[in-house]
């Protein structure tokens, strides 16, 4: 009886092997892929495609208003022996290294300072942000005036005080120009580092400091064994961004020196613009831009791998 009933039920509903399509329909990953497509399309369209096009252009002899022929590595071979390009690489490295190191040091110091109990703390924090809020071009023009060969406020003040007899040639001497532009970049970049690190400092639990104090730790030890290890991930992120921004800086240099005097302040970004857009050699400009990619990748890798490793974050004792 029961057999019969069972049999008839089985007859009615033959068990089917699910088709691949059925499996796909219920697969969460497959669904997820469709949900990700719009974002991926935007990324490909607005990020990967221009990047790929730029790299492709660097292998052609394209001029403005005319697509070029494929010429392989010719642009790169030419740049290898181009003293202006090599100088711009040197300038970019110098500019990035010096500015980033100082930005980090000053930024961290400011963050620690603002983290203390100060009078007017809120106002001070707002004031620190000002250089970051002012549009780059405006601050660049202001610095251009400050450094002007004839009308520099610094030269004028020192002259009035009787400390110097002639104007300081801020932007006319290669090394002066380099330090002057680096200083302007630091002035602009410090607030970003300081405020972000301050946000990181706020997240460190006070109980850790209390425990350390009870154990008799010196202020230096507290910084070295609590603040610094806990801040490391934020430092890595902030410095990566800071290095990327500095390495690709364009506006400050373009407004203040146009890459002069005698190309002493040309960065790769400004040289690329000058060659590609103003000079019309798109292919060569693209090659200079593409040459920046390895450096930028290296900067990203450092922080990426750094963030992956707890050992690096926590000062090496525990893996």
């Amino acid at each position: 009886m029961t057999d019969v009933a069972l049999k008839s039920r089985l007859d009615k509903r033959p068990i089917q092997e699910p088709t691949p399509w059925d499996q796909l329909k219920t697969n969460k990953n497959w669904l997820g892929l469709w949900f990700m497509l719009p974002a991926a399309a935007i990324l490909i369209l607005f990020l990967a495609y221009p990047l790929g096009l730029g790299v492709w252009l660097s292998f052609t002899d394209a001029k403005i208003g005319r697509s070029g022929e494929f010429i392989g590595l010719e642009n790169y071979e030419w740049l290898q022996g181009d003293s202006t390009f090599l100088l711009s690489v040197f300038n970019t490295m110098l500019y990035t290294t010096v500015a980033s190191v100082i930005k980090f040091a000053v930024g961290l110091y400011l963050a620690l300072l603002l983290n203390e109990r100060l009078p007017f703390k809120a106002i001070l924090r707002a004031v620190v942000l000002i250089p970051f809020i002012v549009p780059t071009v405006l601050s660049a023009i202001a610095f251009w005036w400050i450094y002007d060969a004839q009308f520099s406020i610094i030269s004028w003040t020192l002259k009035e005080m009787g400390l110097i007899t002639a104007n300081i040639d801020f932007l006319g001497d290669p090394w002066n120009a380099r330090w002057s532009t680096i200083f302007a970049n630091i002035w602009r970049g410090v607030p970003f580092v300081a405020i972000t690190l301050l946000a990181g400092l706020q997240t460190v639990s006070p109980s850790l400091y209390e425990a350390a104090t009870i154990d008799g730790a010196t202020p230096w030890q507290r910084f070295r064994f609590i603040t610094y290890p806990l801040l490391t991930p934020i430092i890595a992120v902030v410095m990566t961004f800071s290095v990327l921004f500095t390495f690709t800086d364009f506006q400050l240099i373009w407004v203040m020196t146009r890459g002069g005097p005698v190309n002493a302040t040309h960065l790769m970004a400004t040289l690329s613009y000058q060659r590609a857009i103003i000079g019309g050699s798109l292919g060569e400009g693209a090659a200079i831009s593409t040459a920046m990619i390895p450096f930028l990748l290296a900067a990203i890798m450092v922080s990426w791998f750094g963030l992956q490793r707890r050992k690096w974050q926590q000062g090496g004792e525990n893996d």
Partner: protein
Amino acid sequence: MTDLTRRTLVKGGTALGAAAALSGPALLDWAKAWAQASPWKPEKGAKLSMLRWKYFVQSEDDAFVKLIDAFTKATGVPVQIARESYEDVQPKASVAANTGTGPDIFWGLYSLPHLFPQKCVDMTDVADYLGKKYGGWVDSAVKYGKSGNKWIAVPICYSGALINYRLEASKKAGFSKFPDKTDAMLEYAKAMKAQGTPGGMALGHASGDGNTWVHWALWAHGGQTVDANDKVIINSPETVKALEFAKALYDNSIPGTASWNDGSNNKAFLAKEVYWTNNGISIYVAAQNSAKDVAADMDHAYFPIGPVGKVTELHLMYPALAMTYTKNPQACKALIAFMLEADNFNPWLQSAKGYLTHCLNAYDKNPIWTADPKTTPYRDVAKRSLTAGGLGSVGEKAATAIADFIVVDMFANYATGRENAKGAIAIAERQLKRIYR
């Protein structure tokens, strides 16, 4: 500055000058008649947009807007004008040429049209019409305007770059006028510096002031970037001589010229820091408004003649071109022809106060050039100018070499002592060879 009233115009000018005083309704009637008779009939429903370099003198722009309004009223074609700093017209035009969208007309500088000759509307009919009517084009304008045997742009005007110098200080140094030979100019620079009234010329990346004087210095000593067949010949004893001359000049200039951009010498001259420099008439115009004592005590001079014994000046030319992507090529031609007709061009030229110089010979008679003798030298800049690229073609290659500051950097490299002559020339030669390959 002498006041230019209608009366002085009629007295001092020719019939051409008198016609220049058309204004208001008379100008509109004339414009309507012109539109009727013009060989270029704007397309139905045409609209134009134009990107031009940003004016140096406000009055010039006012006059320009007036003539564009007259054009719109007469033809019914609205014209949208955008203005960009004159160095920024080129990148914008380049991008527009590349993407095939943007303003219909670009009014930029130098050999802009030669950066993308195949993207420019053929303007041969407009140039021929104007040349016939107004006494022909000056030589350099023909060279700038044509690519092969067709005109790819219409030369509108030049802005001269001549020597600006202070009279009192020069007299004190023993020079009643600015010297007209390069050797004497060195003596002049030395004497001026010795008495604490130095001058100087831009060696930074100043598209206008930097390029004009270094090319003059190179050519004045017989140096050339390329020969007539565009073969690079920068590496020559003449170039070395030019470099040595420039270094001597630099050593006897005010410090800081290596950082100067186009505006630096204007500021320094007006502030009585710099006593001789090269510039357009803008310093003089500004001085008349803000530093009358400087205006009274300054004058203009041609660039001195060098060892080659002939005029080797380079002045900025401002051509107008229409892009091939425009839907209204006839309207573009009509507008450009309209701008250069005497009834428009004469008052416009006057409004520019000598800053701009015509390149059609008939406009030599414009009263602006004689009303104030201090502006007279600027009358001849179009005639005196050589073209970008020197002996070579004025095409894309010359434009690229100028845009890339190759000659400026060569001079700056040597003058500031960064490189010896051989090294400075070698760098320039390598870059030129690539551009002219």
